[in-house]
């Protein structure tokens, strides 16, 4: 019984990691309809950003969030302005472009670090709490809390603010939004920036857990895509609960069945959801088709 509860906690906290990585990906995917293959690399850049803040300024990774998140927002804005926007007429080219950026980011970091594995220490991150037999690490708890807050903030932002409303408007119908006087390009750029900033938040908070390597983004991205599809395209709640589901499935399958099989098991569930409910658990019906509508 104890281990059941323990695995539940482990799974939820792991879900926090997946949810946080997926949040920005889902926003970009849901709004701009770009599959951002470089999303994992944005997370990776943020992790190295936290490392740089630690190595040069001696900052704890949790403090470096204040620098890394705005920096990633700028990276996202630049990515969209300089690379993706000029390709807006050819959506498949945009996907290739994000793939190119993936290779570019990975290799740039590789060239700078020579592939040596870096670590970002944090006293705070390593503290653990004990509740009965269950041990919870600060680093994972912080991620869970950050995901919850970020999801709520994003939800409120999209519902209540002017920019948020314009983001929702262009998601529903670009042409109508443009006719209503919304600057679609600017909205897209801001959305991409926010998505990248969320990747930045994920990266800075993940940095104390992992050993940094240029390819580390790939460790999360497969799961993140699964979370996005499972939870529902463009849905904040989808990223949140989708992350939890993948985390729980992985923890239970890993502990009770076999760690070797856990990925296979959640991909089976992923495929089953796709067959039964193609929009994902929280997606709106038809959301997956929007990308194929004429969008000029």
């Amino acid at each position, binding site marked *: 019984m104890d281990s059941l509860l323990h695995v539940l906690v482990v799974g939820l906290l792991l879900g926090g*990691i997946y949810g946080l990585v997926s949040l920005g990906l889902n926003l970009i995917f849901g709004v701009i309809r770009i599959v951002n293959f470089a999303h994992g690399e944005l997370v990776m850049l943020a992790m190295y950003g936290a490392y740089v803040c630690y190595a040069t300024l001696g900052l704890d990774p949790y403090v470096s969030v204040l620098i890394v998140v705005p920096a990633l927002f700028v990276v996202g804005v630049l990515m969209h302005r300089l690379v993706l926007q000029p390709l807006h007429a050819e959506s498949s080219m945009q996907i290739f472009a994000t793939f190119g950026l993936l290779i570019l980011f990975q290799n740039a970091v590789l060239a700078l670090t020579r592939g040596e594995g870096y670590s970002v220490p944090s006293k705070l991150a390593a503290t653990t709490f004990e509740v009965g037999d269950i041990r919870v690490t600060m680093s994972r708890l912080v991620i869970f809390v950050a995901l919850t807050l970020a999801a709520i903030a994003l939800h409120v932002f999209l519902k209540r603010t002017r920019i948020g409303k314009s983001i929702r408007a262009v998601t529903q119908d670009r042409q109508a939004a443009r006719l209503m006087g919304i600057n679609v390009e600017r909205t897209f750029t801001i959305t991409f920036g926010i998505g990248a900033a969320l990747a930045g938040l994920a990266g800075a908070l993940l940095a104390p857990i992992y*050993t940094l390597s240029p390819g580390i983004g790939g460790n999360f991205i497969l799961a993140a895509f699964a979370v996005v599809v499972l939870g529902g395209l463009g849905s904040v709640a989808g990223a949140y609960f989708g992350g939890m589901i993948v985390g729980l499935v992985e923890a239970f399958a890993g*502990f009770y069945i*076999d760690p070797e099989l856990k990925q296979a098991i959640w991909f089976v569930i992923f495929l089953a959801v796709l067959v039964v409910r193609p929009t994902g658990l929280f997606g709106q019906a038809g959301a997956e088709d929007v990308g194929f509508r004429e969008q000029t």
Partner: protein
Amino acid sequence: MLQFKGFRALAAGVIAAAFATVAVAQAPLKIGAINPYSGPLALYGDEVARGYQLAVDEKNAKGGVLGRKVELVRGDAGNPQQGIAAVDQLASRDNVDLFIGTYISAVSNAASDAAQRYNKIYWDTNAVAAELTERGLPNFIRVGPNASNFADMSVRAVIEQIAPALGKQPKDLTVWIEHEDSIYGKSIGDIQKKLLDSKGVKVLGQGAHNFRAADLTDVVLRVKKANPDVWLMTGYVPDGNLLHKTAREQGFKPPVILMVGTGDTNETLDAVGADYLEGAMVVSYPRPDISEKFGPGAAAYLAAYRKAFNREPVAPQGLTAYTGMRILLETIEAAGSTDVDKVRAAAAKLDKPLNTYPSGFGVKFDDKFQNTRAIFTVIQWQGGKQVTVFPPEARGPGVALKNVPRKQ
């Protein structure tokens, strides 16, 4: 050889200068060094090449090989395709006489195959995949240890060192085998299981994980539940670090952790910290701190390395590479040529006992041209430093095994 020496003795006086001119005029002996020198694997690729370079410099200072200067030509290869391309380029453009290479087994596999098409020797110093020598490739000779040596040495350490230190008979000892789930980790884990079973050690479980997994708490909880005396761990740097960190967070500190292959560099120290690592052991390539009796010349290697590169060795692979190159140059001298058949014949005749070379190796090739006297050693983390502790004769002066079992 004797005739050559006789000729030199005759020539020593009057035509010494003329002889020197001949030696200089001789084209250099070119060795193509296949390694990843760019990309994510370059860190150790460069280190392996530094080992080669030191052995070559040492030989050139003594007049080279067969009267020819030795020249190292680098071929950059991080994957099999690049391995083939590098061999093609080195063979056709640079006219290298033979090849030496790398710690990446997949590259070694492809590059040695390509070298065979040019009918040139591929001398393997650092790749460990067992199947490389199973191919029966006529130009392939492996002078370094292979993956089954990893398993052998880890089990030897468990039986001969760890069990006595824990005050247990092997049959009372419990072990958990954890490995990453590719062929590399699995092959080592399977041999460990077989060997431990044969010694009567209780293997509580054998687990596999993906080295890129975002979370390994499930693995740690399984091992914690089994509560073994010894946790054997085979994988790469990122998953090894994550296992340690997760175990620490979960309040799990098994009496003995014995890692295989990785975990003996500062990448692990930085990630895990000296406190939790204290007492953990790693089966890896022999390090320059081994005793002079075990590895004659290891200290001289370290001194030469520091002088040439003005830094501490990045990883122990360099010493194995250095030794491998030294044995190659000796073999070429004995063969009097770089011809595949002659080098093979000369290699087959080599018979040097263990503890001949700076890494502690001897040489005796089996019929598949695997050096049967290449070995790994075991280090222990002591106060944030890597100290060679096994085999006992490899220990430097004043070195002892500490913290077995580890302090909780």
